[in-house]
């Protein structure tokens, strides 16, 4: 308790200057969705209200929300209505009841006078069993919230998601697990001027796997979601989209971006994992630590959104411009880079390694073994010190996602 008080004191005295009173209600408790709750910029429900694969305890979640005051609420409609993304695919909840469950949002809005930024996912094909209900719910919400969008989850060829999205009267784009982060950028630091650089200019016109629309269309819809502005000069942030092929070109593109502004690197060459050659170059050339953000853990939409959101929130000039202390900004940037590197490491080495050796559900023993294996990998030095992983676990008992514990240690690395 004393520690909590002390922590609260530290937060108050050295706290961020992003708009206070922001609530965040994640889609579920998987790392990409839950991550913002560790950023010290939002208030989240107690972790215990989310019960892994079983989904959220809805009544507890609604009860929690009813007790909260705040100026802005970034909320996942799927969490509030179905209990999470997985449940949204299978729940047989009738439309009316689904709509009724959103009353809790309207009540919060009316009670606090705060604004709601919400997102509801257009579910993945072919898993979703009640697509029409999900869509109708989104369609029926009208303009009841300050902002509402519908990202579509994993649109592989043959998915109706893109076409369905086109029928909705609200903004839509590919993505899902990054949406919370993107809307937080919209809520906390809107108006970021972003220049987008592609390592291969021709890739911008190509339709990317899992997205169903041309890459640059994805990117421009993402910028709109984030409340960011696409610019060609004097950007606040450069979003480098690495589509793969030549890591050296990727590095040169990053270098080109760094000349103009901090660089958020979305590594979309592959799905759910980064490109090792690029990362090795970045590490070898000591560039990784200079990035504003890096994301490679999901689909292109996931990675673009996560890189943009984290860069937009924590890149030094942007973060400081919002009134945050420089040291706090630097720590946040180092931590999102550390997290991103560990996610890369999981996708590149950890996941294949553990899949080859352990059946799901994964045990703590499996976690211990794979952690030992991963400790042999090179770890970058980041602004605040050497990255030291301290453990990992499988929140959902499966190999798809791992939750890392780490620290950054050693003296601050001032020399290159």
């Amino acid at each position, binding site marked *: 308790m004393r520690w909590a008080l002390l922590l609260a004191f530290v937060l108050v005295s050295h706290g961020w200057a992003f708009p206070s009173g922001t609530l965040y209600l994640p889609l579920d408790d998987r790392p990409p969705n839950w991550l913002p709750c560790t950023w010290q910029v939002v208030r989240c429900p107690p972790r215990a209200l989310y019960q892994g694969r079983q989904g959220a305890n809805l009544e507890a979640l609604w009860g929690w929300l009813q007790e909260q005051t705040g100026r802005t609420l970034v909320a996942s409609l799927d969490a509030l209505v179905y209990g999470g993304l997985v449940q949204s695919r299978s729940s047989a909840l009738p439309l009316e009841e689904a709509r009724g469950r959103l009353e809790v949002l309207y009540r919060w809005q009316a009670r606090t006078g705060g604004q709601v930024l919400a997102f509801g996912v257009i579910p993945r094909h072919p898993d979703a069993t009640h697509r029409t209900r999900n869509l109708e719910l989104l369609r029926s919400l009208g303009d009841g919230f300050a902002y509402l969008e519908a990202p579509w989850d994993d649109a592989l060829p043959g998915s109706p998601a893109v076409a369905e999205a086109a029928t909705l009267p609200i903004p839509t784009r590919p993505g899902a697990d990054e949406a919370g982060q993107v809307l937080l950028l919209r809520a906390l630091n809107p108006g970021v001027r972003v220049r987008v650089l592609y390592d291969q200019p021709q890739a911008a016109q190509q339709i990317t796997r899992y997205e169903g629309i041309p890459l640059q269309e994805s990117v421009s819809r993402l910028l709109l979601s984030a409340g960011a502005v696409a610019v060609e000069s004097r950007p606040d942030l450069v979003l480098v989209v690495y589509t793969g092929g030549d890591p050296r070109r990727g*590095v040169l593109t990053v*270098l080109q971006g760094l*000349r103009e502004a901090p660089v958020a690197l979305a590594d979309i060459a592959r799905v759910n994992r980064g490109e090792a050659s690029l990362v090795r170059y970045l590490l*070898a*050339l000591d560039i990784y630590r200079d990035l504003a953000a890096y994301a490679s853990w999901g689909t292109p939409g996931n990675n673009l959104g996560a890189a943009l959101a984290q860069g937009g929130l924590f890149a030094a000039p942007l973060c400081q411009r919002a009134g945050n202390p420089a040291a706090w900004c630097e720590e946040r940037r180092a931590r999102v880079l550390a997290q991103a590197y560990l996610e890369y490491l999981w996708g590149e080495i950890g996941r294949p390694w553990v899949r080859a050796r352990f059946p799901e559900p994964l045990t703590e023993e499996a976690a211990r073994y794979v952690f030992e294996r991963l400790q042999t990998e090179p770890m970058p030095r980041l602004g605040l010190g050497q990255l030291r992983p301290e453990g990992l676990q499988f929140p959902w008992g499966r190999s798809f996602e791992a939750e890392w514990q780490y620290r950054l240690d050693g003296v601050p690395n001032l020399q290159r």
Partner: protein
Amino acid sequence: MGASYQGMLALLRELVGCPTLEDLLKAALEGAMRLIPGAQAGSVLLRQENAYRFVAMRGHNMPLPGYTLSLQDELRWYGGSLEEALSGWPRAVRIQAERSGLLPRDRQSLQGMCWLLKIPVPLQNRVEAWINLDRCEATPFPPEAVSLARELALSLGVVLQTLKERQNTQARLEREERLARVLEVLSTFHEANLLWQALPRLVMEILGAERAVALRREGSELRVEAAINWREALGFSLPKGQGISWAALEERRVQMVRLEDTGPKFAVPARPQEYAASIPLQDAQGEGFGVVVAYSETPFEAEDVPVLEAFGRGAGQVLARLQAQAAQQRELARLQSLTRASQRLTAAQTTEELLQLIVREALEQTGASTSLVTLYRPKADVLEVVAAAGYAAEKAAGIRIKRNKGLAWRVMEQRSPLYLPDASGDPNAVYASGRRVPAAYLGVPLGDPEGRMVGVLSVDTAGAGGQIHPQDRYALEALAKVAGVLLSRLQALERANREAERYRRLVQMSSDLETLDEPPRMAQRALETLIDLTGLSAGGFFRLELQDASRGSGWMRLVLGHERAGEGRLQHFSNLPVTLGQGFMGKALASGKVQRIEDYQDWEGAWPELKVYKLRTLLTAPLFLRGEPYGALTLASFDHKAHIFEEHLALLEAVARRLERALERAAHLEEITRTREDALRALGLGLELRDLETKGHTDRVVALTVALGQRLGFPDLEGLRMGAYLHDLGKLAIPDSILLKPGTLTDAEWRIMQSHCDIGFGMLENLGFLSQTARNIVRYHHERVDGSGYPFGLTREEIPLEARLFAVVDVYDALIHPRPYKAAWRCEDALGELQRQAGQTLDAAIVEAFVELIASRVGSA
């Protein structure tokens, strides 16, 4: 991922740590010989402009060549195309020393070398370096060497780029740090001038340039305000639109040029080999304050632009802040000084004092050298300089400026401030000094509280320099506003005072005139007041003496005059010939109107005889008595023209009329008096005509009574005279039978006879103009001091003095003139009889005085 790839990554990591490009390439050569199988010697060349120089050599027995090789040399040696080289393709070729670009003496070192693996390192569409790996074995490089070499070449390109970027970033960070320091310094400035002086040093701190200047925008010029290492440039002005500095200011962005490439330069000796960076100083609204230019012998980096722009904006904002603060300070100071000024102005007691304070204040409020107040004179339609301060003030005062001349008229007519940075070009400008020199002018309207224009307050720098800024108009306008209000208030007050004083004097004069009956004394009193009120120096009351009535000619005689002390001119005007209709008095008398002559010296009807006395302004009011010309009241000034107001004319007119009435009254009174006298005398004589008295008796007793009264100091001589005239008036009512009865009267007749005293008294009772003295004589002249008289038998002092006095005269005259019942006595017998009666029937003291009177008359006869 093979070991060689790992080795290459390790090499890259090592290379990234190299501090310089040369170190990096040396390490790259070492690494390449280690990594690439078959390499036994090697060298590395780095691009320098358009040529390549050796950076390192391994395994060759020769010193590092000091000369450079061209791209053509290298491509020949490479044996491939530029495109291949830019794609990072290494080529393994058999060595032919003559194809190398080496000097012949160095080619020896190639002896024994069989194979060359030439690796281009491409970077940004150029071959940045060449790595040459040599092999002396006859067997060629193994096949994997080429692919590994390509990997190395491409990676090296990235490393080189990274290093460059890092250096750039480092440089940028340093610049930003310097900028941050400079911005911090900027924020400490509290005075714009000090900041201007510091700007060249600050920009040099950021850029490390060799020299720098700061140009301040002043109107349409940029003037070198401060300079470092270029003193000659100080004070130099750059007209609008010239040079990169104006371009930087107008385009609001940093300009970087090589001076050689630009057009016309500063007049200061140029150094064409230099590079210049012009940084506009602008605030957040884009308002440009000036430019800072840095000069260097090496080109400025494009990367510096954002930093310099930030510097320009930072400095601009500080300048804007300082300017705003200074303006605020100035405004505050102005307000304070205006407050003080209006306090000071309020203290002014007279208009003149106020005007002087205004012009002095105007000088203080602005940096001008001369200040003027010109007031509008509607009669003459001129602007007259009524107050001046500063340079040539004494020349300016009193100047009258006709319409369409002078800048003040423009201010007056347009009712708005006028600012001219240089008035000398304006043909309307009037110079008090007479010298038409470049000078700034600022004039503001001077109005009264009702918004009427009364004049112009102006400042200028003619003759004595100084400075006037357009913004000075606000201070001057504020001053003019205060001044206008105070001026009109003071003028109104003075007018009111004058009016009150005039009124007081007029009332005084009127009341004085009321107490005066004699026209000359009235005229005297009126002239004193008029001269006082009008400011004229002399005045006279003239009476007309017509000598030739048909021709209307005669003389104007000075009845009385009044002049200011020490004037002494009036004597020359005591007798003036006059002809009605001619000359100023003649005209006045002929027309019946007040004549006004502004300046007698210029008057066409002037007489030379009078001109010599320097007669100037003249006012003449004609005087008429019963419609006939009588004379004139004249006021005059000598030596100086006097300013005559309408009110003066009206006043003179009023006095003249008042005087006429007094003259009239005096004439009338005289007439009445004469008439009454005649009437009474006629009454008295009436008795004589009825033969009741001896002829001449009335006139004699009147004369003797008055004479005796005079002798005795009797106060009411007129009463005595009237009483004497009428003493026996009552006898008119006595029937002739009694009055003319020759014999003794019966008692009844005697009582009737005795009643004439009371009858007479009764007849006079209603004549209000007769005094008690006269009536007492009529009633009691037959009383006797011993009580033997009638009608009441009063004794001694019971009988009024006048009656006792008249009784003596009456008895005496009766004695010395014959009556039907007696002969005339001799004078001395009569006197003897009187003396006998003295103390009995007559008053002894009066008899004594009478005897002396008669004796003195006889003696003097």
